[in-house]
C-alpha cells in the first residue's frame, strides 16, 4: 500500500508539471487586484517562487511538496485565495453523501434482483431483466440526466423534483428533519443518474455469482438435509455469492467519482466533482492537484475497505493471507 501511495504522489506531481506557465507568475496574475505595479508583481512572483521552492531542483520541489501533503496543506486556490483544504472540506461531505447513498442503493437493489433472476434462469423474466439491465448500462448518464430534467424536473411535463443544488434556499429555516427531507428531495434525480449504470452492472454480476453458487455441491447437501428453499438461498447460498460482490466495491467508487463530475455539474450540486470541473475551467492548479490526489486516496481507501470486508465475510481468508 505504501508504495502505491508514493506512486500516487509521484504521478500527481508529474501531471502538475505538465501545466503550462510558471505557477508563480500565474498566481501573481490571477490575483484580483488589477492595479499592481510591475515591481509588486515581481515581488509576488519571487516570493511565490520561494514559497513553492520553484527555484530549487525538481526533486527538492517534490520533497517539499510531499511534506506539505502530509499535513494536507494544498496551498491556496488561485481563484479566491481560500485555502484549498477548506474548499475541499466543504465539497467532500456532499460528494461522499451522494456516493455512499448511491452505493447503498445499488447494493440493496442489485443483490435481490440478481439473486432472483439466478433462481429462475432462462425464464422469460430473466431474459427481459437481462435485456433491460443491458440497455440501462449503455445509456449515457448525462443524457439520462437531461431526460429526467425534461420529464420530471420542470420542463414541459411533470415538475416533481428540483433540479438545482443540494438544498433549497429556505433550507436553513427548516428543522433538522425538514432539512434532511429537503436534501433527500434534491438528491432524488442526481442519485438516480448515478445509480442506474452501476445497478445494471452489479445485478448481472450478482446473478452470475449466485448461479455459480447454486451449482455447488454444498447447496445439494443443504437441500438433502431437508432445509426449506428460502433457508437454502438466504443462509447457504447468499453468503457465498456475496463474497465476490464485496470485492467489487473497491472498483465501484472510482467510477462513481468519475460520474460525479458530470452529474454534479448538471444538477449544480456543490460537490467535489463540480469543484473539480470549475477548477479545471479556471486553471486553478492547487485545487486540481488536490482533487486528483484526494480522489486517488479515496479509491485506495475503498479498496482497503473492501479487502477488510472480504476478510470478515470469508472465513477462509485471514488478514495475513490476504496481505501476502
Amino acid at each position: 500500500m505504501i508504495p502505491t501511495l508514493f506512486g500516487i504522489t509521484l504521478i500527481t506531481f508529474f501531471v502538475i508539471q505538465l501545466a503550462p506557465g510558471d505557477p508563480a507568475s500565474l498566481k501573481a496574475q490571477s490575483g484580483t487586484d488589477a492595479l499592481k505595479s510591475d515591481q509588486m508583481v515581481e515581488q509576488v512572483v519571487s516570493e511565490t517562487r520561494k514559497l513553492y521552492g520553484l527555484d530549487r531542483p525538481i526533486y527538492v520541489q517534490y520533497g517539499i511538496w510531499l511534506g506539505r501533503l502530509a499535513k494536507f496543506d494544498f496551498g491556496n486556490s488561485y481563484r479566491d485565495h481560500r485555502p484549498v483544504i477548506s474548499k475541499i472540506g466543504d465539497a467532500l461531505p456532499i460528494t461522499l453523501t451522494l456516493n455512499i447513498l448511491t452505493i447503498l442503493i445499488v447494493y440493496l437493489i442489485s443483490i435481490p434482483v440478481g439473486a432472483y433472476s439466478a433462481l429462475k434462469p432462462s425464464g422469460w423474466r430473466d431474459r427481459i431483466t437481462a435485456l433491460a439491465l443491458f440497455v440501462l448500462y449503455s445509456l449515457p448518464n448525462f443524457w439520462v440526466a437531461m431526460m429526467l430534467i425534461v420529464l420530471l424536473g420542470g420542463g414541459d411535463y411533470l415538475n416533481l423534483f428540483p433540479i438545482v443544488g443540494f438544498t433549497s434556499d429556505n433550507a436553513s429555516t427548516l428543522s433538522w428533519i425538514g432539512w434532511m427531507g429537503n436534501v433527500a428531495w434534491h438528491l432524488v434525480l442526481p442519485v438516480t443518474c448515478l445509480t442506474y449504470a452501476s445497478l445494471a452492472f452489479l445485478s448481472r454480476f450478482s446473478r452470475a455469482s449466485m448461479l455459480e453458487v447454486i451449482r455447488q455441491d454444498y447447496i445439494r447437501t443443504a437441500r438433502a438435509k431437508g432445509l426449506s428453499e428460502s433457508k437454502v438461498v438466504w443462509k447457504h447460498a447468499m453468503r457465498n455469492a456475496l463474497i465476490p460482490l464485496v470485492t467489487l466495491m473497491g472498483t465501484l467508487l472510482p467510477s462513481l467519482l468519475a460520474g460525479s463530475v458530470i452529474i454534479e455539474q448538471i444538477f449544480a450540486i456543490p460537490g467535489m466533482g463540480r469543484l473539480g470541473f470549475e477548477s479545471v475551467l479556471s486553471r486553478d492548479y492547487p485545487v486540481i492537484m488536490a482533487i486528483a490526489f484526494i480522489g486517488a486516496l479515496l479509491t485506495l481507501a475503498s479498496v482497503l475497505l473492501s479487502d477488510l470486508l472480504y476478510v470478515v465475510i470469508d472465513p477462509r481468508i485471514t488478514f495475513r493471507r490476504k496481505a501476502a
Partner: protein
Amino acid sequence: MRHSYASLIWRQFKKSRLAVAALILVISLFVIAIFAPLIASDKSISIGGFKISAPIPFSPNSYDLSRILEGPSFTHPLGTDGQGRDVLSQLVWGSRVSISVGFVAVGISVIIGILLGVLAGYYGGAVDIVISRLIEVMMCFPTFFLILAVLAFIGPSIYNIMIVIGLTSWTGVARLVRGECLKLRSREFVVAARVAGARDRRIVFRHLLPNALSPVLVSATFGVASAILVEASLSFLGFGVPPSTASWGSLLSQAQDFMDVAWWLTLAPGFAIFLTVTAYNLVGEGLRDAIDPNLKT
C-alpha cells in the same frame, strides 16, 4: 491452427442473433463514418455530365437562420438546430469523431497495455513488481477527472483527446495480458521453446500473445464503447473537439441550451450515442460468450 481458432470463435459468435445484429450495426456505423462526406454534403459531384447530390443534401455546418429549431420534416428528417443546421447531417458527421476517437484511443491503450502486460508477465520478478505497482497507481486515479485536467493543460483537440483517453485506459488490458503471460509462462510449450533456444521475442509473439489476444479483443471492444462515451462526455462539458466540428456530445450540449423551447433536440444525439455504445457492448458480450461459453448461463 490460429486460422481455425478464429473461425471457431466466429461460428460460436454467429449463434447469437443479437450479437450479429449488433455487429452489423457497428459495421454500418463504420461505413457511415467513412463515407460521411459523400452521404451528407451540400456539394454535389458531377460524373460525366450528371450531377449527383448527396442523399442528405446538407453540410453539417451550413446554417440557415430562417429555418431554426424546426421539427422533423421531409427535407430535414430530424429537424434543425438553433442555427438552422440540419440535425441529421450533423449526426452523420458526428459519427466520424466518435468512431475515430474510439478506435484510436483504444488502439493506443491496447498497445501500451500489451507492452506492459507482456513485460510484467513474461519477465516477472522486479519488472513485474514495478509494473504492477504502476498499474495499481493508475487505477487509483479518478480517470475522467484526470483526462479533464490534462486536457485543460494541453488544450483540447481531437488528437489530444485520443491520446489522453488512450493513456488513461490501458490498465485493464495490461492486467489481462500480464495474467495470461504468467499463466502460460510455466506451461510446457513455452518451456519447450525455451529449451530449444528460441529467443524471447519469438516466444512472446508466436506463443504467448495469440492466447492472450481473445480476451484482449473483448476488452478492446468494450473499450471502444467506453471511449466513445468519454469523448461524448468531454464534448458535452465543452472539453471536447472544437465547436466547428460536429460531435454528438457537443450536439447534446447545444441542445441543453434550447431545452425549454425545443427539448426534442436532445433525442437524436443522445440516442445515437446510446445506440452506438449498446452495439459495441453487445458485440463485446457476444465475443466473450463465443470465446468462453462456460461463462454464459
